[in-house]
C-alpha cells in the first residue's frame, strides 16, 4: 500500500472542507472496500480523512414519520435495530444477506453505497478496465463475465454494483442526504448510482468532497409481505449472481402496490418499475408473477458466460414474489 497522510475530521464541515480541497483526498469510514483497493493499487489517495467517529450514526423517526439512518450507522447495527426490523424488515433482511458478520460490524451505510464493483478485471491492474483506467477498454466484455450485468450496460463497462443493502433501499424509495462545500442536496436513491455509459469511472453522482450524511426512507406499508432472495455460488458470504427484493402491499389476495428491485444484474441497484406497475391491482398468483418477471426481463442482454442469468433472474423474481405474498 502506498503511504498516505491521515487526519481525523473534527466535524462534518471540516471533513467536507478537507476533501474538497483536492482530488487526491478521500473519506474513510469502515474501510472494508477502500483498504483493499489501496492494497491492490487501484486507489491511491494522498490524504485520508477519517469520518467513522462523526456523530452520523443515529437511526430515528423524523417529524414526518420517515425513518432516517445516519451514514455512519454500521450495517450490523441497522440490520439488528428494532425500528428497522419492525418497519423496514426488507432492509434488515438484505443487510444480513451481505458480506460476513465481521464486515457488517465495520461497514457503514454510506460506505456500503460507495463500495466499488467486484469485477475481477477492475481488480486486476494488469488488465484493461474503463472504470479503473478510463479509455483502456473493457476486458470483461469478451472475458470471463459470468458475474456481469444483463441490464443497462454499455460497450464501455459491464460491471455490476455489488451491494445488497442498496437493492432494498432503492425498492423502498429511499433518498440520500448529501452535504457539500457549497450546498446540501437530496438525491432519490434510484438516481444516486448511475449507468456506465461512456464514463464507467463514475459509479454515482457524488462530486469530489460531497459527503453522504444519511438515507431517509418514507413511511410505507411494505413490512408484512416482503422477501430478499440472493442466489450465489455458496449459501453465505458471496456476492450475488442475482438477487431480488420484493415487497407487496396486499389487500386479501390482491396487490395494492408492489416494489421490485434486483441486485447483481446492473451497474446500479436495478428497480423494476414496469413489473411493479403491472402487478398493481392484480391477484397475487403464479401467472401474474410470471408475467411480471417477463416484463422485468424485457431489455435483458447477456454477454456470454452470464447467459444463465437470463433464465435465473425471472425464476428468482417469481420465487421471491411467491414467498413475499405468502408471508403471514
Amino acid at each position, binding site marked *: 500500500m*502506498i503511504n*498516505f*497522510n491521515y487526519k481525523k475530521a473534527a466535524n462534518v464541515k471540516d471533513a467536507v472542507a478537507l476533501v474538497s480541497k483536492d482530488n487526491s483526498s478521500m473519506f*474513510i469510514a469502515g*474501510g472494508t472496500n477502500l483498504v483493499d483497493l489501496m492494497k491492490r493499487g487501484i486507489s491511491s489517495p494522498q490524504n485520508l480523512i*477519517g469520518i467513522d467517529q462523526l456523530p452520523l450514526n443515529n437511526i430515528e423517526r423524523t417529524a414526518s414519520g420517515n425513518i432516517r439512518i445516519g451514514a455512519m450507522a454500521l450495517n*450490523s447495527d441497522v440490520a439488528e435495530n428494532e425500528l428497522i426490523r419492525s418497519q423496514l424488515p426488507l432492509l434488515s433482511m438484505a443487510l444480513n444477506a451481505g458480506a460476513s458478520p*465481521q464486515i457488517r460490524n465495520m461497514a457503514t451505510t454510506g460506505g456500503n453505497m460507495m463500495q466499488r464493483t467486484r469485477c475481477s478485471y477492475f481488480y486486476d491492474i494488469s488488465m484493461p478496465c474503463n472504470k479503473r483506467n478510463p479509455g483502456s477498454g473493457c476486458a470483461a466484455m469478451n472475458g470471463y463475465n459470468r458475474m456481469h450485468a444483463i441490464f443497462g450496460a454499455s460497450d464501455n463497462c459491464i460491471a455490476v454494483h455489488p451491494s445488497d443493502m442498496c437493492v432494498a433501499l432503492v425498492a423502498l424509495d429511499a433518498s440520500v442526504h448529501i452535504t457539500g462545500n457549497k450546498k446540501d442536496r437530496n438525491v432519490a436513491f434510484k438516481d444516486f448510482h448511475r449507468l456506465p455509459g461512456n464514463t464507467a469511472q463514475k459509479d454515482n453522482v457524488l462530486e469530489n468532497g460531497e459527503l453522504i450524511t444519511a438515507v431517509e426512507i418514507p413511511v410505507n406499508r411494505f413490512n408484512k409481505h416482503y422477501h430478499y432472495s440472493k442466489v450465489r455460488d455458496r*449459501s453465505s458470504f458471496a456476492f450475488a449472481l442475482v438477487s431480488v427484493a420484493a415487497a407487496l402491499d396486499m389487500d386479501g389476495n390482491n396487490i395494492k402496490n408492489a416494489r421490485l428491485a434486483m441486485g447483481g444484474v446492473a451497474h446500479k441497484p436495478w428497480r423494476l418499475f414496469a413489473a411493479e406497475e403491472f402487478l398493481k391491482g392484480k391477484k397475487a398468483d403464479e401467472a401474474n408473477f410470471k408475467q411480471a418477471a417477463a416484463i422485468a426481463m424485457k431489455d435483458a442482454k447477456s454477454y456470454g458466460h452470464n447467459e444463465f442469468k437470463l433464465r435465473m433472474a425471472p425464476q428468482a423474481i417469481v420465487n421471491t414474489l411467491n414467498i413475499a405474498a405468502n408471508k403471514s
Partner: protein
Amino acid sequence: MSRDITKSEAQNAGVEHPRRKFLKQSTALAAITLLPQTLVKAADKDLDQFAGKLEQAPLQVEINGKQYDLSVEPRTTVLDLLREDLHLTGTKKGCDWGQCGACTIHINGKRVLACMSLAIMQQGKKITTIEGLSTGDQLHPMQQAFVQHDGFQCGYCTPGQIMSAVACIREGHANSKDEIREYMSGNICRCGAYNNITDAIDEVKKGGKSL
C-alpha cells in the same frame, strides 16, 4: 579574557552555530530531492495538520488489557501492527483482504477483521486478540470446546474461528446449528472442520456460560 569566554559560551548556547545549521539544511534538501515527487508535493501543504507520510503518528490503544503508547505509519493495518510490531502472532494473516476471517479480533467488543482495519484509526480503542481471551493458564470455554470437538486440523484459521465464535454467542446468533453456520460464514476453514466447529459452538452456547 574571562569576558571573551563568557561571550562565546553565550553564542553557543543561544544561537545555533552557522556550520551546524548549514549541515542540517543541506541534508534535508538532499533528502527531499531524492523523494518521489508526490511525497514532496504532499509535504509542502498542510503537513502540520496531518499524520504525515514522512513520519510516524502517535497511537494510544489498549490491547488485551494492556495500554500501549505506539508510533505507527498511517498505512499500517491492525493485523501488521499486532504481528510484526508487537509480536502477537496468534492473530493470523490468511488472505489479507477480508475474505477468510483468519484475522478476526474484537475491537471495542465487536468482531472485526484486523487486515482491513487501519491501526491509526483505533486511537483510544480496546482490542482483544486470541492471546487475551483466556485468563492465565486456564483455557477459555470456547478454546476448550474446540479441543474437545476437534474443531480444526491444521489450526491456521482457529484463532479467527474462536474469536468469531465467542462474538457469535455474545451477539445472540448461535440459537441453532443453521444460525451458527450462517453467522460463522465469515470464517473459512480449508481443512473443512466445519461440522466440528459448529458442534463446539453449539455446546458452549448450550452450556449457558457467560462469555
